[in-house]
């Protein structure tokens, strides 16, 4: 995982509520046994028409979208399945942070495990970001704030250990492995065995 301290970028706006993981990566692309190449299926049924032509009006198809690192999405982004292919595909596109007023639980955890920063802001800020497509903003993981062009800093919460892992660019597995002796002791001492 690459380290992320802060990201400064213009935004990609996807002003749709309840975007589910079946839209992000449809199930028919989950037959892969690799991590690589999943980015190609990102939003595929929204990016292309039935003949395989790019739909120009879809925000991720805008030429400038490729260079942007921050996605501002409608409320309750990432709802649905547990497929980690969803954050993998978004990451592969080049996006490193998703901002919404609400992000679904499993998607949020999967994102944190893959260096994609889930940012939940208040509804007023969220609406402002949705309404202002061409602004450059900063997502500061260290300070836990989003800085708007007028200098205003909007705080957001991120689980402290996941934040530490993103800042250091490390997987959470290391901490679990450090606890192996505790895990063994727990297994030995518990009052019943599964």
């Amino acid at each position, binding site marked *: 995982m690459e380290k992320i301290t802060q990201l400064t970028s213009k935004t990609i706006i996807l002003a749709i509520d309840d975007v589910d993981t079946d839209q992000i990566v449809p199930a028919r692309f989950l037959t892969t046994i690799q991590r690589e190449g999943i980015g190609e299926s990102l939003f595929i049924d929204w990016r292309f028409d039935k003949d395989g032509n790019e739909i120009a009006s879809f925000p991720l198809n805008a030429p400038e979208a490729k260079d942007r690192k921050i996605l501002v999405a409608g409320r309750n982004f990432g709802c649905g399945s*547990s497929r980690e292919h969803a954050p993998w595909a978004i990451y592969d596109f080049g996006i490193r942070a998703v901002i919404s007023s609400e992000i679904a639980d499993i998607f949020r955890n999967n994102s944190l495990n893959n260096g994609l920063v889930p940012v939940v802001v208040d509804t007023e800020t969220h609406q402002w970001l949705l309404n202002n497509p061409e602004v450059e903003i900063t997502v500061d993981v260290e300070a836990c704030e989003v800085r708007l062009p007028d200098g205003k800093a909007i705080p957001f919460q991120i689980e402290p250990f996941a934040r530490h892992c993103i800042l250091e660019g490390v997987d959470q597995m290391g901490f679990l492995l450090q606890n192996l002796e505790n895990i063994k002791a727990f297994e030995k001492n518990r009052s019943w065995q599964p």
Partner: protein
Amino acid sequence: MGGQSLFEKVWNDHVVVPETEDTPAVFYIDLHIIHEVTTPQAFNMLRDTGMKVRRPDLVLATMDHSTPTVPITNLEESLDAVSDPEPANQIRAMVKNCDEFGIKLHGFGDAHRGIVHVIGPEIGATQPGKTIVCGDSHSSTHGAFGAMGFGIGATMVGHVMATQCLLLRKPKSMAVNITGKLKLGVSAKDIILALIGKIGVDGGTGHVIEYRGETIHDLNMEERMTICNMSIEAGARAGMIAPDTTTIEYLRGREEAPQGAAWDTAVERWLTLPSDPDATFDKEVNLDVSELEPQVTYGTNPGMVVPISKPVPNPGDNMSFKKSINYMQVEADKPMLGTKVDVVFVGSCTNSRMTDLRNTAKILKGRKVADNVRMMIVPGSEAVKQKAEAEGLHEIFTAAGADWREAGCSMCLGMNSDKLGKGQLCVSTSNRNFEGRQGPGGRTVLASPQTAAASAIAGVIADPRDLI
């Protein structure tokens, strides 16, 4: 200290290292259920780092998502004939991975191959008080037993394989109190759809739900599983129901349930799990189901649901709502009743158990599926299939003109050849009506098995109460 809820008791019983301000809890997992779709990358990670599956004895493995639903007797000889190449490759990888890492696999030909959330309970591996995870969001199903079941991504699948633990912050709790006696033709599926309609697809985000009340108490285990299964459709982390005599009688004698003296000890422990009378919850919701109608969805998320006789709401200027009903080609202010149907799917981890198949058969018996409809009935597991056939249900299905298939996830998510065509409308007993979920361009209307069966006969969305 006040009383504890069911969820708090199960949570506290699994904390290996408590959470601090800086670090989440190290949280123990009692049962890890795995399937072919969300494990290959985790197995690769183990291989790349030279790690083992630490507790293969706590892993339950099967293949369900991308398996074809036509008979496969021999993996090598018949898989390629009936499967698309990529899913076939994934199925083979699962066999190889389980073999390499010493995991017992319920594969083809095994009486307990089937949908992950059907076989766990069926073999008695799902038990009250356990923590159960799977790389599948419908792991909430296992909560019907008073277990804490939740879905995880591939990275966390790797964490559990390597350590049998996860790093978690304690979720919030939510009580859903359900009261009233269900009317004839109305089922557990209608309860959960109505609840999601009431609280929204994000109504449970960050919370573990406990379903309580007289209505829940009166449901059998399969109906309780239908309710807990769709907790994730309300955004909840998990959904739980307190274990009681119904739970215990269901588990008694199942092959992985404790036996003999261990059974008595387990039952004694299980009966301490229900929430204390003075337990408190972060959030509480009440739902009276005494006047509940069969429910149908009209949009592209499970919260977009109406009672079958009521009109589709008017979107006003809500763009997401408009996009959704345009995709579905439904009209605002008109009921879904009477909408032409192309396909009816009875199956999925929500509704593929004996109760669901019996409810379907009651409606289909002596009737015919309409000429314009293809009806697929897909049992949740091989064992369900065998039991249904022993009861003669398959004869009712095939006599009605329905297609009775092999166990698997099938058209719930269209990973193999069971897919909707573009524009086709499917009344489905599954759990997600997302755009293209059942096949690109397909339109899904979620409903109960009774409503699905009634619609198959009518050829249009129909009210099952007219056929009972």
